[in-house]
C-alpha cells in the first residue's frame, strides 16, 4: 500500500555525538491493539541521549498513542520499551515518570487551581526525600528541601521568563504561557527524555520561533533527549535531528530532515498518491 519501506537501520537517526553511548530510548516491536484495531504496530525506534527527535504523520496515525505507550497510559500489547537500557514492562505511569520520561499534552492539562509555582513543585515532590513525619513537624530537612524546591522552581520558570508569574493561578495564564508552563512542569520531574505533544499548537509564527529556541535551550542546558509530535513542518525540519514518520500505526520512514523531505513514501502519505501520467 505504501510501496517499498525505505531501509533505514533503526540506529541511523541517532546523532553522531550520541553514538557509542547507550540510547536513552529503545523501542522494540512495540505495539498495541484496541479490540482488533492495531493502533500502533511493530514500532521500532532508538533515540540518542541528547537527540531532538520528531514524530510526525497524518492525523490519526498513532503518534499520541506512541506517547501513551511510552508513558504507560496504555499498556503495550506487545514489544519492549527500554528506557536507558531498563525494561519498563512492570512500571506504572508514575514509576515511568520517576524513571525519566516526562511529557506535555496535546490539550493543555495543567493543575488550574494550583499556582504556577505549585504546578512546578508538585512535579518535583515525587523526587523529594523528606518524610511525612518531618513534613508534619516541620523538621529542618523539610525546610531545607522546601527551600531547594522553591529555588529550583524559580530557576526553571526563569528559563521561560515566567518567574514573576510564580504566584498566579495556572488557570488564569494566557494560552502561550500555559503551554510554556506545561514544559516547565515536565522538566521539574527531572526527566532524561522529554515528550512534547504538539508544543506549537495554536501558536503564532513568532511564538513558534521562540519555542524552537527554547527547545534547543532545554536540550543544551539539561543535556536530555527530546521527542516531539508536531504538525508545524517548519519547526520539525528546523530542530529535529532524527525524524520518524508514522502512518496507520506503522513506521513508514525514518531519517534526517533532508531524507524525510525527499522521501516519496512520506510525500504520498501526506499528500496522497500522485496520478500516474
Amino acid at each position, binding site marked *: 500500500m505504501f510501496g517499498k519501506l525505505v531501509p533505514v537501520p533503526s540506529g541511523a537517526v541517532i546523532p553522531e555525538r550520541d553514538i557509542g553511548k547507550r540510547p536513552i530510548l529503545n523501542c522494540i516491536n512495540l505495539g498495541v491493539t484496541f479490540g482488533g484495531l492495531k493502533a500502533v504496530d511493530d514500532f521500532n525506534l532508538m533515540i540518542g541521549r541528547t537527540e531532538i527527535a520528531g514524530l510526525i504523520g497524518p492525523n490519526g496515525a498513532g503518534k499520541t498513542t506512541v506517547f501513551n505507550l511510552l508513558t504507560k497510559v496504555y499498556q503495550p500489547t506487545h514489544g519492549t520499551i527500554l528506557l536507558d537500557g531498563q525494561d519498563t514492562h512492570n512500571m506504572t505511569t*508514575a514509576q515511568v515518570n520517576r524513571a525519566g520520561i*516526562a511529557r506535555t499534552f496535546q490539550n493543555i492539562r495543567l*493543575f488550574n*487551581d494550583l499556582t504556577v509555582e*505549585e504546578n512546578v513543585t*508538585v512535579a518535583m*515532590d*515525587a523526587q523529594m526525600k523528606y518524610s511525612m513525619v518531618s513534613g508534619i513537624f516541620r523538621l529542618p530537612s523539610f525546610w531545607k528541601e522546601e527551600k531547594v524546591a522553591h529555588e529550583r522552581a524559580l530557576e526553571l520558570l526563569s528559563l521561560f521568563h515566567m518567574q514573576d508569574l510564580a504566584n498566579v493561578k495556572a488557570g488564569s495564564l494566557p494560552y502561550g504561557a500555559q503551554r510554556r508552563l506545561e514544559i516547565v512542569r515536565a522538566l*521539574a*520531574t527531572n526527566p532524561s527524555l522529554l515528550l512534547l505533544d504538539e508544543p506549537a499548537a495554536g501558536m503564532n509564527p513568532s511564538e513558534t520561533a521562540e519555542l524552537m529556541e527554547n527547545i534547543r535551550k532545554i536540550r543544551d542546558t539539561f543535556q536530555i533527549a527530546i521527542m516531539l509530535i508536531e504538525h508545524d513542518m517548519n519547526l520539525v525540519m528546523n530542530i529535529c535531528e532524527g525524524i520518524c514518520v508514522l502512518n496507520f500505526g506503522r513506521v513508514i520512514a525514518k531519517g534526517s530532515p533532508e531524507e524525510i523531505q525527499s522521501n516519496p513514501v512520506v510525500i504520498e502519505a501526506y499528500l496522497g498518491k500522485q496520478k500516474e501520467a
Partner: protein
Amino acid sequence: MEFLSYLISGISLGSIYAIIALGYTMVYGIAKMLNFAHGDIIMIGGYVSFCSMYYLNLPPIVATLLAVIACTVLGIVIERLAYAPLRSAPSLAVLITAIGVSYFLQNSALLIWKAAAKTYPPVVAGAVQLFNGQLTISYISLLTIAACIVIMLALTTFVSKSKMGKAMRACSEDKGAAQLMGINVNSTISATFAIGSALAAIAGVLLCSFNTSLMPTTGSMPGIKAFTAAVFGGIGSIPGAFLGGLLLGIIEALAKAYISTQLANSIVFAVLIVVLLVKPAGLLGKIVPEKV
C-alpha cells in the same frame, strides 16, 4: 439569653456536622466519589471508643486515639478492597458499592454489639455557668467547637502547604496528568481516606458524647446531614464544608427551638433546596463554565 443558648447548641451540633462533612468533601474532592459509608465509620469510631472506655477502663483521650487508629485503618482497608478496584468504573457502580459498604458496616455492628442502644459516657462531663447561671454551656459543647476549629485550620494548612496536600489538589483536578508527573495517585487517595476516617472517628466520639447513646444506626442520620452540609457549602471545598456544617447545625437547633421539633429536619432540607436553587454549586462552590 435563651436564644444564645440555642445558638451555642446549634454551633456545637454544627461543628460535629462540619467535622463529618470535611471527611465527605475531602474524599469527594480527590477521589470524586460519595462515600456513603462515611456515616457508619463514625458509628464504628463510637463503638471502639465505647468499648475501650467501658470494657478496658481506658481514659477518654486514649479511647479516642484508639478509635482514630481503628477508623483510619478501616478507611484505608475499605478503600483498597471495595473502591480501588472500581477506580475506572462508572461512578454509579462506586456509589452503589459505597451503599453496600454502609449496610455491611451497620449489620456487622448489629451482629457484634446488638441492636440495643448503649449508654455512652461523655468524654468530658460538667458545664460552665455564665451570667449568674442564666446560660449553661456544657464542656462537651466547648470541646466540640474547639476541636472543629482546630481540625479546620490544620486541614487547610495541610492541604495548602504540605507536599501531600499539593499532590491531593493535583489529583483532584486531573489524576492522569498527576500520574504522569510522578505522583502516586493510589497512595494519595489512600491518604485522603485515612484523613477522612480519622476525622469520622473524632466526630463519632463527640457525637456519642453529645447524644449519650450509641447504636448501629447512630451514624446514618448525621452522615446524611453532613453530606447535606457538604453540598450546602459546595462539595469539594474545605471551607465550604465547615461553613455548611455550622449553618446546618444552627438552622436545625433554631428550627427545633422556635418552630417545631418534628419539622426541624424538614426545614433543614428545605433550606438546602432553596440554597441549591439559588446557588447550584453550593455556598462556596465554584461553577466551572464549560468551554465551547
